[in-house]
């Protein structure tokens, strides 16, 4: 379907952790406004229509995660899905213990949950050591474990198969966080891995929508009064047009996933080379065993905020994990856990090609402009002589 004329093409977007909707998903969303607006729990005709559309979306997205529709629930955000998913695991095992084993580069929303006391350290590329993870699992009173399939900030893959096996050996349920990878690479969720799997429709061109799968047979339950919607996991059902747009985005992304992944990987390789060629720039994260579409580098003697502004002047939108760009003025916990430079940090999350057809040109422009942008920022800070 052609892009409707009222959606101007996206250019210069290199920060698509939450990007614009896939154009076909946007069209589906518009169409669903007319058909799927009703509360799907109502028994009247509009409600029944919405229910049927929601069931369709659930079937499609369950397929995306490799789970059954009755295992999958929709949540207002990926963060909400992660929080609910972990809370249900902990609560169900509260007689065993309350501790949660998690890697140090897990998403903040998970690290802030009760029970996560001493995260498992990561190496300089950001990967947890499976042996250290196993030691933590062997401790007393472990209720649950958490592992990301890959890190959203630096791209590094985690040893999912190994940690999943160790969790089973210890009888500890594992929450697998695939929010950065589902829809961006094949095999993002290994078949049968994890007791709970969480993903985000925004990662593949859908709207922000948390996807939570609790595998059948998992001991799982939330404290407090029973929730009515989404298999007892949410107080209210999702807004059906969002679920439909998410399902559409998945189908669109899945149809071109092989070429999309290959092309993104090649573009990120270009950025890694261009950044590494600039003096005193450190490209971080695993160079090979990583997400195809994410790359991060840190520029010594430069200010992340100023660098972002300098690149914005050149028409490029990137992100940063530097303290000065965060509302709390704290650096990214991921970069800090890896022991890499946190200042002068630039993070690129490529949009899907379908979302931003100019992305290869934008990447080339970043590669061309980077050296000069860095020199300009260092000159302005008076650090070009260091």
């Amino acid at each position: 379907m052609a892009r409707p004329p009222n959606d101007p093409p996206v250019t210069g977007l290199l920060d698509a952790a939450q990007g614009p909707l896939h154009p076909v998903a946007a069209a589906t969303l518009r169409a669903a406004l007319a058909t799927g607006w009703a509360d799907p729990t109502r028994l009247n005709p509009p409600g029944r229509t919405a229910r049927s559309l929601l069931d369709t979306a659930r079937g499609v997205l369950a397929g995306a995660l490799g789970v059954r529709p009755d295992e999958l629930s929709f949540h207002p955000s990926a963060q909400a899905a992660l929080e609910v998913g972990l809370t249900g695991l902990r609560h169900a095992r509260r007689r065993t213990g309350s501790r949660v084993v998690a890697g140090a580069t897990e998403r903040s929303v998970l690290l802030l949950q009760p029970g996560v006391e001493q995260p498992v350290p990561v190496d300089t590329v950001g990967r947890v050591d499976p042996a250290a993870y196993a030691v933590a699992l062997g401790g007393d009173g472990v209720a649950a474990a958490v592992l990301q399939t890959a890190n959203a900030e630096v791209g590094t893959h985690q040893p999912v198969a190994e940690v999943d096996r160790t969790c089973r050996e210890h009888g500890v349920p594992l929450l697998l966080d695939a929010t950065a990878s589902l829809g961006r690479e094949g095999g993002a969720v290994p078949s049968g891995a994890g007791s709970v799997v969480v993903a985000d429709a925004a990662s593949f061109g859908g709207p922000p929508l948390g996807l939570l799968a609790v595998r059948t047979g998992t001991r799982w339950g939330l404290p407090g009064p029973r929730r009515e919607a989404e298999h007892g996991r949410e107080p209210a059902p999702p807004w059906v047009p969002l679920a439909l747009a998410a399902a559409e985005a998945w189908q669109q992304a899945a149809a071109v996933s092989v070429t999309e992944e290959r092309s993104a990987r090649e573009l990120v390789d270009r950025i890694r080379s261009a950044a590494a060629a600039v003096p005193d720039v450190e490209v971080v994260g695993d160079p090979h065993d990583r997400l195809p579409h994410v790359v991060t580098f840190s520029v010594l003697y430069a200010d992340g905020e100023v660098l972002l502004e300098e690149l914005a002047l050149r028409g490029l939108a990137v992100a940063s994990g530097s303290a000065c760009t965060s509302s709390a003025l704290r650096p990214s916990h991921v970069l800090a856990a890896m022991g890499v430079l946190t200042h002068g940090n630039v993070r690129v999350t490529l949009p899907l090609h379908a979302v931003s057809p100019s992305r290869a040109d934008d990447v080339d422009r970043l590669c061309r402009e980077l050296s000069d942008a860095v020199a300009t920022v260092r000159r302005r800070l008076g650090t070009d002589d260091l």
Partner: protein
Amino acid sequence: MSGTEGHPPSDARGRSGGPPVVDARGSRCPVPVIRLARAARGLPSGTTVVLLADDAAAWSDVPAWARMKGHTVVLLEDEDWTEYRVVLGEPRTERGQADSST
């Protein structure tokens, strides 16, 4: 990461002929690292330079800078700030050694 034993910063500053001390308390990233690099510029290897900083980012950035530049650093944590004792490595002729992680 080292423990909290060692000389308090006032010692380091007060000692005549002691190492140069950069007091970057109150400055935010990337200023502490920049001031430290400036103080270290041109000094021979083996020289000690001391940085006092209370910025959370310096806690990861000073060791990262030292690793990129071949210096060694010991952290001595005080209640409100951290003292970084840097022993300079061999000076490098060229800026660069970029992308040491790959």
